């Protein structure tokens, strides 16, 4: 299980990588692996306002469709256009090439609601038991 440091995680298995005022968002390796081969993703629109923990994207695998929730509140400023034709990037590179979108997050304090890598590692191990 790949759980990189320096990024934040949610209980729904999204991640957020903070770069200044921007947050890059995707789903964790654990989530991508659980879903299986990802075949479709619906991303939010650029300019869309997101609320922490509210629905922001859909991801479909051969097996099932799942909702993705925003790890932070803020405005979407960019989306990963590669995913439309190559959703398998989410399985292959969940934290880099398979990111979903970038956003300007609006509330620094919301980071306190997220887990760091070691907390997420424990959380995932708890699920596996």
């Amino acid at each position, binding site marked *: 299980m790949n759980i990189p440091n320096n990024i934040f995680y949610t209980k729904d298995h999204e991640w957020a990588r903070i770069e200044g005022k921007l947050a890059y968002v995707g789903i964790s390796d654990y989530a991508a692996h659980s879903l299986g081969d990802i075949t479709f993703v619906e991303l939010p629109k650029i300019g869309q306002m997101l609320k922490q923990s509210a629905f922001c994207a859909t991801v479909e695998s*051969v*097996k099932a*469709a799942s909702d993705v929730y925003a790890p932070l509140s803020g405005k979407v400023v960019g989306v990963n256009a590669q995913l439309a034709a190559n959703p398998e990037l989410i399985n292959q590179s969940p934290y880099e090439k398979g990111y979903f979108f970038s956003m300007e997050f609006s509330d620094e304090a919301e980071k306190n609601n997220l887990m760091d890598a070691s907390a997420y590692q424990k959380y995932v191990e708890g699920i596996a038991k």
Partner: protein
Amino acid sequence: MAPFGGWMMPIQYRGILAEHAHTRQQVSVFDICHMGEFLLQADPSSSGFDRLVTQNITAMPFGTCRYGFILNEQAGVLDDLIVYRINETSWMIVVNAATIAADFAHFKAHISANCSLENVSDKMAKLDVQGPQSFEVLKNIFGQEIASLKYYTFAELKIFDQQSCIVSRTGYTGELGYEIYIANEYVGRLWELLLKDERVLPAGLGARDTLRLEMSYPLYGQDLDLNHTPVDAGLAKFVDFSKDFIGREALAKEQKTGPKEHLIYFQADSRRAPRHGFNILDKGRHAGIVTSGSFSPSLGVGIGMGYVADNYDIGAQLVVKQDSVEIPVEVVRRPFLHKTSLMNQN
């Protein structure tokens, strides 16, 4: 792993897309031990067997198999099944896992008590070897006898020092392929032997479902059920109306007056998958329900099938909807895939 028909079944090994592609391009082995097998010794006509199934079994040459249905009096589908004719009075009947007990009770109730009918589902294992290279793989194991197997025929072949097994040229993938029935105690060895051939990789139920769906093969419990008849499903060609069978009267009547529902096939305009239970809409109005749907790995778009009240022409534009998800689809001809190794062979 996931529960299916009372079994723990492998959904995937390496991944559904990889297993699907490997089956279409090379050859896969599927663990299908869950399916049910009955052995029957019976004269087809006097025993009542002929009345139980829709296929024309009395005309079957020895060593052939035939697909058909067991119906209730209302012509609802109790199960779909393949009948194997071993000789004049000896048969193997292959049924779905979830319906084994009900099918066996139904057979028991309708077949003369003096016939031998045995449910061997717990003793007999089944492996499917499917893909364009399946012939080459099985030739190495069974020898030249495999070459004589035409589509929907079978033979009793020897393996592991005189252990006999039934090998039929049948399948559920749309590729050239074989189904092997063998006693439980030998199936582990056969699995290992098949995987020793480096062309062969295991595939799970996930790939089995996407492969069969691309061929528009129905799955019992989803696309076929008690509420639908073979005429609704567009599968009347697997029904012999020239003979008597349970459900014949209702089915013949429906064929005259027209089906009450129609099983249609549709393709999405995107990678988004229609799924079991989604609504089918025609210009915003409810038109039917999706029975099976998935992303099609071969076509790169969503595909599905479902029952609608009114029939639609090929090319008709509909929408598949569930909550906020709306997928525009076009009605297409079955099967979704036209060029496979199954169609390239005799």
